[in-house]
């Protein structure tokens, strides 16, 4: 019984953290707000570290790793509020590896030459669809078999949306499914889409943990240096308690995310429920971190001059993306309160 990332997962995370500390500063995140296409030179560097191809099979130039490594790395990406579409790369890679391994996309994603966007059933918008080289689109109508298409954004109608987080370039994607773009259909496609959605939600949950830690660190630093009426505000019990509450939320969200990674990597029956729990807990931690960070920063935190908003807005965006809290709560509730008797814990 061990609940901790392994040494390699840990080291991989550290490497990514150090890289991002230098190459994805708050200034870089700001730059992504202004950029038309967000995929920067950093993408190729991330590829060299193995990050873009983390879950790409190793015979396609990837690292062939799984959800545990993915969440260890995405937690660090979250700490930096990395604007590049890493979650989408991981989600697309899983589908391509299963249904279109020989089309060349996998190796190009792993090498940082291609950027993938995804649009799964239940998602309204695709991130970075205009800058992407391919969009993996899932369709799951109630009255017809599920389908997965890999489409060229040039063949789609892209309608740009504006996210609260300007670093997230969102698009409504219109396209006509044709046989040439179809890579999978039927039950296998439906299963793959469900797993892909879980991978996206899990990755996003890990990202939210990193954002939470960043906002907490920023706020602790601010509370230690900000003097009000001759007193450092961090000495006030009310301020201390705001920050302690965030830490409690974070410390209890982290093992929930780690367990979801474990379950999903092994395809355990509890994986969907575990992933939903992870998204709920990480989203709540990030939301509390954002609110308390704003409250402690006061007026300066309510400006765009200060960096805090870059992290708060990403937290809000990602809490809504990949299934918001009510969608995930409904899934856990259905699992616990469905027709089957309440699950005994532990499951033996």
């Amino acid at each position, binding site marked *: *019984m*061990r*609940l*901790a*990332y*392994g040494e390699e997962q840990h080291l991989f995370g550290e490497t990514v953290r150090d890289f991002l500390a230098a190459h994805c500063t708050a200034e870089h995140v700001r730059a992504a707000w202004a950029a038309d296409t967000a995929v920067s030179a950093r993408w190729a560097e991330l590829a060299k570290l193995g990050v873009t191809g983390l879950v790409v099979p190793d015979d396609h130039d990837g690292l062939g790793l799984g959800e*545990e490594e993915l969440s260890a790395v995405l937690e660090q990406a979250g700490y930096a509020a990395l604007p590049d579409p890493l979650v989408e790369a991981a989600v697309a890679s899983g589908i391509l590896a299963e249904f279109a391994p020989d089309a060349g996309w996998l190796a190009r994603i792993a090498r940082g030459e291609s950027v993938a966007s995804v649009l799964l059933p239940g998602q309204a918008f695709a991130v970075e669809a205009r800058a992407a080289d391919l969009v993996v689109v899932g369709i799951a109508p109630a009255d017809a078999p599920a389908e997965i298409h890999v489409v060229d954004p040039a063949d789609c109608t892209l309608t740009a949306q504006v996210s609260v987080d300007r670093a997230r370039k969102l698009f409504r994607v219109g396209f006509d499914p044709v046989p040439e773009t179809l890579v999978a259909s039927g039950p296998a496609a439906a299963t793959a889409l469900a797993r892909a959605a879980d991978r996206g939600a899990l990755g996003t949950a890990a990202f939210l943990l990193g954002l939470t830690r960043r906002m*907490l660190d920023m706020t*602790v630093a601010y*509370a*230690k240096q900000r003097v009000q009426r001759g*007193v*450092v505000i*961090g*000495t*006030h*019990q009310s*301020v*201390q*308690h705001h*920050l*302690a*509450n965030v*830490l*409690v939320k974070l*410390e*209890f*969200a*982290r*093992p*929930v995310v*780690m*367990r979801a*990674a*474990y379950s999903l990597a092994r395809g355990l029956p509890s994986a969907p429920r575990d992933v939903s*729990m992870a998204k*709920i*807990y990480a989203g709540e931690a990030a939301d509390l971190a954002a609110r308390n960070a704003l409250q402690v920063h006061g007026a300066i935190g309510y400006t765009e001059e200060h960096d805090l908003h870059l992290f708060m807005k990403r937290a809000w965006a990602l809490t809504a993306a990949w299934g918001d809290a009510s969608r995930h*709560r409904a899934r*856990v*509730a259905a699992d*616990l*309160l469905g027709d089957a008797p*309440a*699950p*005994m*814990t*532990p499951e*033996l």
Partner: protein
Amino acid sequence: MDLEFTAEERQFRQEARAWLTANVPAEPLPSMDTEDGFRRHQAWEKRLFDARWAVVSWPEEYGGRDAGLTEWLIFEEEYHRAGAPGRVGQNGIFLFAPTLFAFGDTAQRDRYLPAMASGEEIWVQGWSEPEAGSDLANVRSRAVRDDAHGGWRLTGQKIWSSRGTYGHRLFGLFRTDPDSRRHHGLTYFMVDLASPGVTVRPIAQLDGEPGFAEIFLDDVFVPDADVLGAPGEGWTIMIATTGSERGLNLRSPGRFLEPARRLLDLYRRRGGDESLRDAVVRAWMDAEAYRLFTFGTVTKLLDGGRIGADSSVNKVFWSQMDVESHATALRLLGEYGELDAGSPEAVDDARWLDGFLFALGGPIYAGTNEIQRNTIAERVLGLPRAR
């Protein structure tokens, strides 16, 4: 990560489950905070001890099984799942014993541990004093040297002492250096409550039972043999005990998993008020999160790490969770929520109301949650000391 139990651990679980199934009393025991209930709980402790289930993590020479942390967690899960009685000896077994193992000498361990494990001697907390609740550095009860008799004479007053009404021995801090202040000059004593000069005044808790007591000491003699560690070192030793109290020793996940599962069942039985669905699911998820957090802590400990101030994070979480889940149950019960035990129509013999009243103490004892949040802010987050 490896979230599986080993074959040995699964075997251990089966063994514990089989024994508990065969031995847990069919009818719940009367409250341990009544005279009759206290004795019957002592008898249950003896039964556990005789089968070597009383203190599974202790060395075999003291009646344990040398079980590791994971096995202990497994045992606790099975214990609570079986609906076994609350542990009247828990203050001794879970809080004081780890300190006694760490700081006691051989004679003290031999003298006290077996009697504690068998339920023969029930230990009582002597932490709080009037005007020194969570602020233990403000302890005023004093001990003066009695060289002629080879010991100390204790005078003062302890309050909110759990199990104080019927218990036998007290562990607590006394000021042995009259000129000392705060956490200096304190000594950790083990006091026989049958000694001359001890007066116990039971205090009725919210539930009406004398779960704690006020204990007055008037020139009570305690021999040197009952000083734990060196005189003046009491503070350091106390920190170890309170860490056990907030941390995982007293609050194994098993304790919360079973009520959470019963809450799901209650929700189904009561027809499922949709507006409470989220709160019911939340209670289950929080218990699960607590279990996972504990696995993380255990992993850290097995890797040679220490818990330290993290126990404050733990304490804030479980105490809030416990209150919320019971409050949710009471909302589900509607009008039946106010019915106390013994009411003909009380649902589940009012265990939800009972549990709610008990849970309300969580954010208060073991250092209030406000104190815990200060500790988190200062010792984990590194903020400057609160004003």
